[in-house]
């Protein structure tokens, strides 16, 4: 790997570990002689490698000017010092470690100095991204029993594209096509970030004028569809009374129409003031454009109302002794519903909210348990959690070129069906709801061409009929050059059956991380992506983090198609690169037992494939050590308490829509206990999170 070191760059060693510093903890006051303490710190912990005698990474700190305005390049170096200290990867783990308090003091002082010097440093908000969540020390959350008053900040949360379209679909009674990217669809103007990791974080999305214009167009389209009369869905009575009449509507009819849409879209009646304004607007539009068009235009603003666009979670009532308020009953009902479904709260939730039975964590627990037991209630957000956590649903986004597909022996490559297979496996394990993470990691079961299995069963009579007519035997299996889904799993066509899941060899497969969907989602256009796979293990199972690729690094492997990936990755073992890559590559290279289409292999380029790797600096000493291949590594990881705790941290992020802070330790510990003590029940974990103080209470900063 060619790279260029900038003048200011950078600590040579970027050993990845968890950080000392809590993302949202109050920064301690700086010591009176903070500048002197900072110099002493650098002298004791940094200058042996970055001083007069040595300049690791071309960096010397012994004559660094104070971080003051006008200090020029010194400010950039100080900013790098701050970044590395906050990331917790300096000094390297093998060196004498400073006291946590000393680091915190230095970080606080340095932040303040750089700010007053006008130097832009990463803000707390930058650390709110999911990729930075593991910078919060795992030990800080789980090492000691925690108590305290957890809460989230009062916030707005832009509805997700799914939640938005869910409401629009409900309003249109299915008369509008809301399938994504269909030519007849109702388009959501909202998107979600396309980076790996959880996408729907509350802080992340805003709504600007361009989206609002589209919301207005959609609103009219949806209301127009509500007015359409079909045998299966007639217009709501409150609107039909106006649209079917040729005369001017009465004031009462106008009020009823406004009321109806408020109740449907916002799940509440309008306030007296709102009714007056919205009814006035509707009446004016009806008078100007006629009953039908007037309804469409006059009711549209209800669907642009802030409560239709944002989940409002400000809390209500008096603050408790910790300065927290509970979500209002309607806010809690909405939060619970959108946590599990893409719909606004159902009638039961709304009744509980109206009757004062939705105010406490115990109320939330009761309702979540009810919804989880309700088999008729679609809960797509649970599967979506696993899709985002594992990242396997990204497989179709990894482009494989036709020549590459053909060279691999495939006639057709259809990654979306691989994703469906893995979805089916996740849903099966969720249905069993025992040791969910462990099963997901080590099961030898797999759905293989599950979509094909459905059609194969359905079309049996048709095949037999065709065979009778031609006098030939019906085909024994559905696989041919256009459908080689079985090959991804190394399942011979003759062995395949519609009775699924199948059992795969335990030496070759272990759970989701050995499913073709996950493997291809974590591959490149032409090869495996050992770095990304290793990063996934580091991040999602071990709770570690890897710094962003330094801007001065040209992250590219040599183009040597005749060499193995492991050999081409020799460049990452250059000293500068290895400081980070040692935390990814040894975790990713064991997956070389598969090719980039997810097939198990024993040879690569006509040589026995090297599948060795290692777990390093995991935070759980029992885990550390060499591993012979991915299956062995996964089985080891699946038994680790730390891995299960890290899983709980990720579930927290998804359902709370934010990174955890040190104050959330009681919530996380309770969630982990609920999961552990219920024999690894995902339902128990979800119930615990959605009835936690972090979910129900809001910390209020009054304007």
């Amino acid at each position, binding site marked *: 790997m060619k790279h260029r070191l900038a003048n200011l760059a950078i600590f040579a060693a970027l050993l990845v570990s968890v950080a000392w510093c809590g993302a949202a903890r109050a920064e301690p006051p700086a010591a009176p002689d903070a500048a002197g303490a900072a110099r002493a710190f650098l002298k004791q912990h940094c200058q042996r490698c970055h001083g007069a005698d040595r300049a690791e990474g071309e960096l010397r700190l012994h004559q660094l000017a104070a971080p003051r305005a006008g200090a020029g*390049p010194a400010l950039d170096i100080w900013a790098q010092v701050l970044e590395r200290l906050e990331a917790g990867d300096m000094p390297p783990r093998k060196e004498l470690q400073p006291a946590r308090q000393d680091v915190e003091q230095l970080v606080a002082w340095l932040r303040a100095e750089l700010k007053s010097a006008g130097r832009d440093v990463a803000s707390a908000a930058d650390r709110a991204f999911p990729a930075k969540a593991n910078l919060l020390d795992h030990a800080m959350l789980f090492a000691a029993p925690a108590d305290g008053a957890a809460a989230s900040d009062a916030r707005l949360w832009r509805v997700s594209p799914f939640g938005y379209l869910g409401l629009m679909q409900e309003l249109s009674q299915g008369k509008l096509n809301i399938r994504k990217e*269909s030519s007849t669809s109702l388009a959501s103007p909202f998107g979600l970030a396309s980076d790996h990791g959880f996408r729907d974080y509350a802080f992340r999305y805003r709504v600007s*004028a361009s989206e609002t214009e589209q919301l207005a167009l959609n609103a009219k389209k949806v209301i127009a569809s509500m007015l359409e009369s079909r045998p299966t869905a007639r217009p709501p009575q409150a609107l039909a009374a106006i649209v079917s009449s040729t005369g001017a509507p009465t004031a009462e009819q106008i009020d009823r129409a406004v009321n109806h849409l408020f109740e449907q879209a916002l799940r509440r009646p309008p306030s007296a003031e709102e009714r007056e304004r919205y009814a006035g607007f509707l009446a004016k539009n009806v008078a100007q454009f006629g009953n039908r068009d007037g309804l469409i235009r006059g009711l549209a*603003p209800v669907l642009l109302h802030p409560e239709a666009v944002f989940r409002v979670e400000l809390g209500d009532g008096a603050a408790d002794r910790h300065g927290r308020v509970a979500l209002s009953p309607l806010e809690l009902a909405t939060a619970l519903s959108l946590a599990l479904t893409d719909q606004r709260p159902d009638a039961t939730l709304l009744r509980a909210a109206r009757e004062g039975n939705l105010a406490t964590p115990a109320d939330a627990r009761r309702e979540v348990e009810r919804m989880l037991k309700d088999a008729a209630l679609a809960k797509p957000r649970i599967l979506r959690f696993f899709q985002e956590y594992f990242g396997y649903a990204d497989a179709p986004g990894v482009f494989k070129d036709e020549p590459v597909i053909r060279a691999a022996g495939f006639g057709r490559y259809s990654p979306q069906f691989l994703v469906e297979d893995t979805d089916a496996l996740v849903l099966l394990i969720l249905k069993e709801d025992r040791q969910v993470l462990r099963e997901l990691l080590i099961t030898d079961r797999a759905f293989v061409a599950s979509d094909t299995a459905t059609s194969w069963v359905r079309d049996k009579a048709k095949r037999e009929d065709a065979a009778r007519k031609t006098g030939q035997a019906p085909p024994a299996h559905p696989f041919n050059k256009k459908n080689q889904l079985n090959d991804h799993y190394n399942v011979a066509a003759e062995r395949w059956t519609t009775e699924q899941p199948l059992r795969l060899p335990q030496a070759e497969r272990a759970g989701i991380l050995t499913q073709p969907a996950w493997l291809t989602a974590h591959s490149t256009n032409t090869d495996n992506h050992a770095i990304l796979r290793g990063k996934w293990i580091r991040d999602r199972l071990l709770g570690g983090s890897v710094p962003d690729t330094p801007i001065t690094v040209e992250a590219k492997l040599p183009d040597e198609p005749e060499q193995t990936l492991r050999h081409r990755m020799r460049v990452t073992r250059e000293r500068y690169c290895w400081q980070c890559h040692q935390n990814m590559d040894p975790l990713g290279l064991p997956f070389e037992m598969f090719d980039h289409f997810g097939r198990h292999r024993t040879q690569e380029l006509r040589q026995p494939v090297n599948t060795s790797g290692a777990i390093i600096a995991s935070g759980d000493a029992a885990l550390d050590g060499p591993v012979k291949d991915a299956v062995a590594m996964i089985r080891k990881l699946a038994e680790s308490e730390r891995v299960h705790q890290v899983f709980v941290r990720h579930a927290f992020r998804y359902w709370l829509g934010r990174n955890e802070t040190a104050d959330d330790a009681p919530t996380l510990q309770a969630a982990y206990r609920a999961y552990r003590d219920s024999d690894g029940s995902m339902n128990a974990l979800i119930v615990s999170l959605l009835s936690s103080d972090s979910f129900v209470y809001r910390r209020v900063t009054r304007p």
Partner: protein
Amino acid sequence: MSISRRSALKQLALGSGVALSPAPWSWAATAAAEERGPRRVVFFLQNQAFYPEHAQPRELKVDPRKLDRVEDVALKDHALPAPIDPLEPIKDRITILQGINGKHVGPYHGAPFGALGGYRKSDSMPLGETIDCALGKALPAVQPALIFGWEALDRMKGSPIRYASSAWAKGAPAPMFCDPVLAFNNLFGVAKPGAARAEFDADTELFDLVKQDAERLDRRLSPEERAKFASYREGFAEITERRKRLLAMADTLAKHAPPLTDKFTKPRFDMDWWDASLDIVIAALVARVTNVATIASGCCHSGGSWLGLGLQNQGHSLGHTGPDNPDWLVLRRHNMQTLLRIVRALEAVPEGQGTMMDNTLIVYTSCHAEAQHSTGDKWPFLLIGNLGGRIRAGRYVQYPLFPAKQGRSINALYCSLLHAVGAPRDHFNLEGSLKGVDRPGPLAEVLT
């Protein structure tokens, strides 16, 4: 993190930007900008690659790796290579730039935001201002920057607004229209005759109504949440303000609005909507609704669709073919025809002693730099037009490749554009870890 455009611009006005002579953006700034004479800039980004070979005159044999000085020659004696030879008739008005450095952007497989920002690419959140938005602030208009994304038809319908090429500031991406009808309604809705005009007025009232609810909620928010809510709350004011300004120029809009033909409303192919959006770009420039437009063909990512051009390679695979592939010749020449269409349209509109094109610059490049699997160390650009005499034209300029002393970066090119429109800066986004990428100052070879 995203902040609203208005907030971003307010921050700039308060001096938090890096401008040497910051032009605090406001509606009132329009008059000041017009005193400098009209200026307009159009960016066209073709994804997947702009191969240096496609912009290399056949007789000019230059090995940039061996250069130790800038090669700067007149184009008039050299025939343009086939991929760009549709521009041969206007060769005296184009400049070819070769060897510009953008390695720090990381354009391998595309550089969302980075290609126009001169900083590390990002799929979701821009790290700073992009040059089209910077120029939009310097050349204010009702629509400070009009941005279109071209993609496969279904994708454009599925995501009518995207964020991929442009940004007002760090964390403040600028919306990109994929749906030309939506853009039409935004910009030319007022130009609809009769009852539609009444609808436009009613829509304005609609936004005013919701704005009151937004302001009510705003009063309950903490300062942090209020900042997040600002783009929504201010969006209504922005829409209302824009609509007022559009209403004030309704006659002009009606005169220049493109007809809403089937290619807008019943598109059959991807190219129908591309063509429609090009109509809007031209109409918006001619009607002076905007002075800066960007077209990102492929939306800065590595997919794409060119149904209608008859290419054998579609989507990502086109980028795997190389400069000699016949499909690239077809696509590049189609790009050039598109640019020519803008040129000819602006030439047809008198302005001052000449035409609108005399005060226009078109910048053509790729958001992937020199290849799909690029390093960004030799990023080609085409400049068309001389921007009221501020840009040298009819030149072929080859820069030595970095780290040669005479090597220059895309940041320097963008800095030059700001100088050319009368909003000079010391540098463009060469801050923090990018300070070492290039020296400050514009490209002497680009400015007159």
